[in-house]
Every structure is written in structure tokens, then in C-alpha cells.
């Protein structure tokens, strides 16, 4: 099917191809810098670099940051709670994947 106005746009895979700075991560996830800094100190995110200006986040951080944001926005969870929720969610993901391997839903 062809659209008259369709444009073909190139895309890159965030998780494979790029590192994000603090500013880029905040833009991409709609998080505030204060939140991201608090999450880094809580161990939710682990960027490379010593000071926030030098931080480089892996592509996987985008997903975690988006989840963290939605928990803060929708459930008003503090950084320690976000860390716990994300750790538990990681564990659930592993368990669900294991069930899926055996065809159990």
C-alpha cells in the first residue's frame, strides 16, 4: 500500500547504537534531571562517568527511566520505592520469560 505523503525515515535502535547524556535521557523520557539524579543515587540507573555533566547512559536506561517516570507520575512513588518496583519488575520479567519458554501463560 502506498501513501502519497508517506516519507521513509531512517531509524536507529536505541538499545544497540547509542549512549545518552543526562539531557538527552531527560528529553527522551520526559523525566526531570532531579528525578534522574535521585534514581542514579538509588541505583536504579548506572551511568558511566563521575559527575552528572559527564554521565553516559546506555540505551537500556531509556526503558527503565520511562518506567520510573510512570511510577512517579501515576503512583507517586519515591526513589527507593521506584528502585524496589523496578527490581521486582525485572524479576517478574525473568519469571514470565521462563514460563513462556515452556509455553505456560
Amino acid at each position: 500500500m502506498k501513501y502519497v505523503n508517506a516519507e521513509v525515515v531512517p531509524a536507529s535502535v536505541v538499545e544497540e547504537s547509542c549512549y545518552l547524556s543526562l539531557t538527552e535521557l531527560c528529553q527522551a523520557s520526559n523525566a526531570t534531571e532531579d528525578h534522574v539524579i535521585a534514581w542514579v543515587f538509588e541505583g536504579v540507573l548506572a551511568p558511566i562517568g563521575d559527575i552528572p555533566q559527564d554521565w553516559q547512559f546506555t540505551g537500556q536506561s531509556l526503558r527503565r527511566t520511562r518506567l520510573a517516570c510512570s511510577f512517579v507520575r501515576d503512583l507517586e512513588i519515591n526513589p527507593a520505592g521506584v528502585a524496589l518496583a523496578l527490581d521486582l519488575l525485572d524479576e517478574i520479567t525473568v519469571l514470565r520469560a521462563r514460563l513462556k519458554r515452556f509455553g505456560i501463560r
Partner: protein
Amino acid sequence: MKFKDYYETIGVPRSATQDEIKRAYRKLARKYHPDVSQHVDAEIRFKELGEAYAVLKDPEKRAAYDQVGNGAHAGQDFQPPPGWGAGFEFSGSDFGSADGMPHSDFFESLFGRQSGRAYQRDTHARGKDHHAKVLIDLEDAYHGAQRSITLQVPVADENGHVIIRERKLDVLIPSGIRAGQHLRLAGQGEPGVGNGPAGDLYLEIGFNPHVQFRVDGRDVFLDLPIAPWEAALGCSLTMPTPEGSVQITVPAGSAAGRQLRLKGKGIPGDPAGDLYAVLSIVLPPAVTDREKAAYLTLSGIFNFNPRPHMKGSTS
């Protein structure tokens, strides 16, 4: 337009205190949060909850809602009373819905639409990044694909009202993409203000459910049913993969649940994933006398106890 009973959505009586509303909302929000919940309609329920809470948590809006809603029931036809809205001025900072999409018509008829971004002539700012989810077929992850996607984008019209505009994009999906990964389309987000650059568009990839294959990261699984004699004696058979059929050998003496790994036949990448065929042994039913006799012959020939560790059982 149908009346929406926000109290019913949150599950509290009309007499509920603000604290009770907050507690009930929080509990349901955790239950139906789309990032956590497995409920099929989690996303819809969560959106409804958000809308209900946006009204009921704010004493000013709650009072206004109570006034029009007095005696109305959910699903009932509803029109706001004439002159409605004249006496209220709503100033909440969190008026918009979480995902930037407008609330229901019912909500907007009472509380107005979200106002659009204020454009100021001398301001230059980068446009916001936008997010959307895209479902692709597993085969697309093997071969790569060009996909037309339609995005519903909330934009502000000349009066500052939010309207939904459809936008079509052709996206090149690279091979090797996995569920949960994001594609970044530079400059395809919200337009910038003034001379500011446009934001980026992020597409989160998910796979359409497949009748045959299950995916875990890069690895792909399928159930491979075999007959008891194929399991016992081994066999060679043709098996489907997302890239087409392949010939595989089932080793003699394979038990049910055994996983045969086809290295590198999962989702491509560096390293590529593996494809696993999970064996299941299907028993042929014994219906005719000949078939029953065949099972009897088996039981006579084998001195086989399937329950060696079970006490009290007889073989």
C-alpha cells in the same frame, strides 16, 4: 454523550473523603498500571481511573462534578446544563492526561480541553520527544521490513484546542530488532518552537503473538510434537522456522520436554539468538482392536514401570 460515574470508576461512595478517594485510586492504579498489570483491558481501565481521579482529587472540580452529576447514572445520556462552566474557573496544573492524549468527550464538556502550548514569537525551544508503540511480526525481526505506521498525534489548533491528527510514516525496521527495544527517528517528534529543532520520535517495538513461535529476547521457541516411536527410535523431520523450513534430527531416546537447539537460528544479531524445538510426545489413541493389540504387545514386551519412585503403586 454518556454520563461517566467517576465514583463508580474509583469504587467509592459519593460521600467518600479525599483520603478515601486517594487510597482507593492508588490501590486500583497499582492494580491496573499498564507497565505492571497483565489484565487485558489494563490500559483502558487505567486511563479511566486517571480521568476520574483528575476530577475527584481536586475539591473544586469534584464540587462542580457533583453539581451536574446529582442523580445521573453511568451510561445515561448527558448534556451539560445551559450556562455550564460560567461560574467555574479551573486552574489545575495536572489537567492533561498522562499520555498527552485528550480526556473523554464527557470530561472535556465539563472541564474544557487541555490548552495547547502557548506560542511566543521570540522563544526558541526544542520540540518534545514523542513515544509510540508498534507491533511487528516476528518474521520482520529476521528479515527487516519497511512498515507504514499511522500515528495519532494530539496537536493544538489555532484556537488552542487539542485535536487528533493522523500522520503516516514509512519506517525501516532493521533486522535483529527485539521486543522492548526502541527505534529512534530523529526529528520526527514535536516540531520545535521558533528556530528550535524538532524533537525525536521513539517507537517501542513489540511482536504480534505468533501461533507457532514464542520469543524470549533473541531466542525463539516452538513446540515440536512427535510420536512415541519417533522419540524412542529417533527420526529426521522437517520443522518450520521463521526463515523457512529446516531438516532436523531427533535423537533416539528423546524424552518429552527435551529442547533441541538450532544454534544461530533465533533472531539475527551479534550474537544471533538460538531456535529451540521443545519436544512433546503425542500418544496415538487406541480405538480399533488392532491399535489396542499394538499397545498390549508393547506392555507385554516391556518390563516397564513408569512410577518406580511412587510408593504403593503397582505396575
